[in-house]
């Protein structure tokens, strides 16, 4: 096993354990902090999968911005103390475990061999591309050429979200 594979499994294990803790902690604050751990571990997993730029974006956008927003709302609503548990009883736990397990079995039943050989790129194409163009350019080039219109629409979406958030959260306009 190479170092990459070892690191992949270490950080994948951290991500899975902290995700399980995230959904089982009573306090929303503890849940949020365990989710931050999951997001950091996932960014390391991305690096192990040759996506260094996306790994950095994950830390900046998810762990840095989105989770701060969550923690801010938890603070604003004064939910940090825990209080009575919001987990459902044994029946809810059974349903959640059953449906989650069924979903996992279905997802794993998909062919594990990966995409068909016809559309698969030759081994090492991505690594060569990243070697040649650099980590950021590999993502940026298609983003500003093939995916230019989706990119512009994303900016409109973000503007709409900002306006919507202000309208919803303001007491009186």
């Amino acid at each position, binding site marked *: 096993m190479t170092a990459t594979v070892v690191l992949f499994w270490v950080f*994948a294990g951290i*991500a*899975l354990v902290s*995700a*399980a803790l*995230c*959904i089982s902690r009573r306090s*929303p604050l503890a849940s*949020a902090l365990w*989710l931050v751990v*999951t997001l950091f571990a*996932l960014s390391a*997993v*991305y690096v*192990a*999968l*040759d*996506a260094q730029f*996306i790994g950095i*974006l*994950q830390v900046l*956008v*998810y762990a840095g911005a989105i989770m701060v*927003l*969550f923690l801010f*709302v938890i603070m604003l*609503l004064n*939910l940090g103390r825990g209080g009575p548990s*919001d987990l*459902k009883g044994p029946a*809810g*736990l059974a*349903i*959640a475990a059953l*449906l*989650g397990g069924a*979903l*996992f079995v279905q*997802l794993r039943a998909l062919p*594990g061999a*990966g*995409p068909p050989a016809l*559309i*698969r*790129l030759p081994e090492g194409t*991505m690594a060569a591309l990243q070697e040649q163009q650099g980590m950021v350019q*590999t*993502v940026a080039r*298609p*983003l500003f050429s093939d*995916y230019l219109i*989706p990119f512009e629409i*994303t900016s409109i*979406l*973000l503007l709409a*979200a900002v306006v*919507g*958030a202000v309208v*919803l*959260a303001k007491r009186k306009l």
Partner: protein
Amino acid sequence: MLLGPALTVSAILFALGVAGVLLRRNAIVIFMCVELMLNAVNLTFIALAQQLGVAGHVFVFFVMAVAAAEAAVGLAIILAIYRHQETVNLQDIHLLKG
């Protein structure tokens, strides 16, 4: 070479997110579980991008932008609900019940 393990990890993460949505009653925690599911899908995109080209990375970028917009609007809705109902427990919010 890590495709199979990455897809397995992603499937477990997605199942954990679904289980969390079904298990919890706190609206904010349910929202965090949705973020967990989005991240599981991102992991699938990244894993498949190794074999199918850089489009996967671009899509992860879009998913992150949509997740940011969704978090902003969703948390604003939760704030508005809290102002009306003084709770974020979904069991106590039953306006649609006759």
